[in-house]
């Protein structure tokens, strides 16, 4: 008698929920052990990381603020991931979006441009999209791996940002800090929740989630994208346009990341800074997977990751944890999620000597 792993044909709905929950529990356990080994107050750290953000209205609103870029980017990325198009350069598309959106207020710091804010948002979204489309064209035209190209493009985007902020776009009265001028009032997004920093970009992110849901679950285009991911050859026989799928995936991913970049400079930052992204583009990949690449799941996972970000800030004070603890926790989450989610897709079967049940 032998035991063997057999892949299930479809992941059950229960598994979609059970996997992230199990990953969260395992990450908590692993972090508790790690923090305790390092001599940190493990209980206090976890309390700060996961519960403290809910204790005041302001810290909760900060969670929603943090959630905005993560949710936007992850919704865009997940569309591509489901079609097996691996855009891992959202970081770069975010930065280019932030740069494109900043051009107008940097050139006209007195705000003397009609329709300043809408123009900035459009410029940011289109900039991010154009940047992602470079990788799409190199993939469809020459077959260059979009994984590596988008990654390289991200690293180049960081250098473009550095060049602008250390050179032509540096605030002349900024004490030599690598940041742009502060934007005028008409270049800033309206606040959504009074008394907080949460802007209407949060509403954009929720609308984008609804659109992603409608497209992926109820539109023929979403069906084509999902088929391209699950069964590329079937998609080919069905005559679905493969290059078109790559272009669409990267365009939407770049658009969402660019929009998120624009919302960040026109939102909580109010200027272009070197740390404009603080790793949102990479964290959003974790968010997308943790949400099961499902538009509704991503809303939940982006919320969870934002809670950890805000909790991490308070943990640095109350539990003397370095900021890196947040990164460690995120890393654990993704590792355990990949483990639990893929494990749930298998079931253990007793293989009979005749070998029935083998594939």
């Amino acid at each position, binding site marked *: 008698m032998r035991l063997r792993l057999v892949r299930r044909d479809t992941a059950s709905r229960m598994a979609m929920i059970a996997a992230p929950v199990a990953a969260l529990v395992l990450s908590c356990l692993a972090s508790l052990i790690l923090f305790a080994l*390092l001599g940190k107050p493990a209980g206090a750290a976890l309390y700060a990381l996961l519960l403290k953000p809910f204790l005041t209205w302001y810290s909760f609103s900060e969670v929603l603020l943090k959630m905005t870029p993560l949710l936007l980017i992850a919704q865009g990325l997940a569309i591509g991931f489901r079609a097996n198009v691996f855009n891992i350069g959202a970081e770069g598309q975010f930065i280019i979006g932030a740069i494109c959106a900043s051009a107008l207020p940097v050139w006209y710091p007195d705000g003397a441009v009609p329709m300043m804010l809408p123009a900035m948002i459009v410029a940011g979204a289109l900039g991010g999209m154009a940047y992602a489309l470079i990788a799409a064209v190199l993939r469809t035209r020459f077959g260059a791996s979009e*994984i*590596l190209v988008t990654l390289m493009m991200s*690293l180049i985007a960081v250098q473009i940002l550095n060049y602008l902020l250390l050179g032509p776009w540096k605030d002349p009265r900024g004490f030599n800090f690598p940041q742009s001028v502060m934007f005028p009032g008409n270049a800033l997004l309206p606040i959504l929740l009074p008394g907080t920093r949460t802007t209407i970009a949060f509403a954009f992110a929720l609308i984008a989630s609804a659109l992603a849901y409608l497209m992926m679950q109820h539109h023929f285009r979403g069906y084509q994208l999902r088929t391209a991911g699950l069964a590329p050859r079937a998609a080919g026989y069905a005559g679905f346009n493969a290059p078109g799928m790559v272009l669409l995936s990267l365009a939407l991913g770049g658009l969402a990341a660019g929009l998120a970049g624009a919302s960040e400079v026109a939102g909580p930052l109010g200027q272009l800074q070197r740390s404009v992204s603080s790793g949102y583009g*990479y964290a959003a990949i974790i968010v997308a997977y943790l949400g099961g690449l499902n538009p509704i799941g991503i809303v939940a996972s982006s919320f969870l990751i934002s809670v950890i970000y805000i909790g991490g800030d308070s943990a640095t004070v109350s539990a003397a944890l370095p900021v*890196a603890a947040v990164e460690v926790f995120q890393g654990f989450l*993704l590792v355990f999620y990949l483990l639990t989610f893929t494990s749930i897709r298998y079931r253990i079967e007793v293989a009979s000597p005749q070998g029935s049940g083998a594939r």
Partner: protein
Amino acid sequence: MSALEFLLAGTLAAALPLLLAALGEMVVERTGVLNLGLEGMMALGAVIAFICVYHSGSHILGFAVAALVSAAFAMIFAGLVLGVRANEVAAGLAIGVLGLGLSALFGKTYESQTIKGLPDFGLPLLSNIPVIGPTLLTQDLVVWLTIIGTVVLWYVLNKTKLGLIITAVGENSVAARAIGYPVVAIRCAAVAFGGAMCGLAGAYAATVYTPLWADGMIAGRGWIALALVVFGTWQTGRVAFGAVLFGLLSIGQLSVQAMGVALPSQLLSSLPYLATILMLVVISRRRMSLG
């Protein structure tokens, strides 16, 4: 020291962490696996090596422990990708993030601490050659060992049966399995080797190149190493050439600034990535036209 001497003396040391990590990843990719977690594995190796050298004073111990820990860490990736067949891009990024976080967490109490590096020494006789003798031919022990190691790796990959098996597993895993090679075990070993090489690369960066602990000290070298594998088209010699070129570029940036040339340093920093995209387009295009 003239700019030329500065370049001759510093290029190999700057190239070394890139070369070590890239050679490891090259072997991984040759077996048909892509591990994007280089940056994290290097950062973990760096902090482990630094802590070992800080407390023991032994570089040998530091390098050995860093290699072992990073190889063990890479086994998380192997378990996810080869074990439960999780998505390879996501798994690579996961251990990348985790490695960076662990590195910062472990290194927290060592911030700004320094240790002793390794002495440089010249090759007998050859180091008497003017100009290149005291510069290019005077390096630390790790550089000399890595040059020997690179030649050995080239030999193993290109002239031995093991090298042939690795190629077979990467190019046609179904056929390799049919012949009876343990595909998963070979890939697993390659991932462990890649992890160990990243550990060594991190150890060199943290305990020899700049023997001082600062968070984020890997500073994107893992990404450059990843680019280097593509730039070198998965060939040992070309990867080594690329590493020297990228090393020269990073050192050259300093001397260009020192000479006051009005070339934005960001452009030089971007060159490895631009060159890699170009190379990727050229080789992919050739592969496409071959069918």
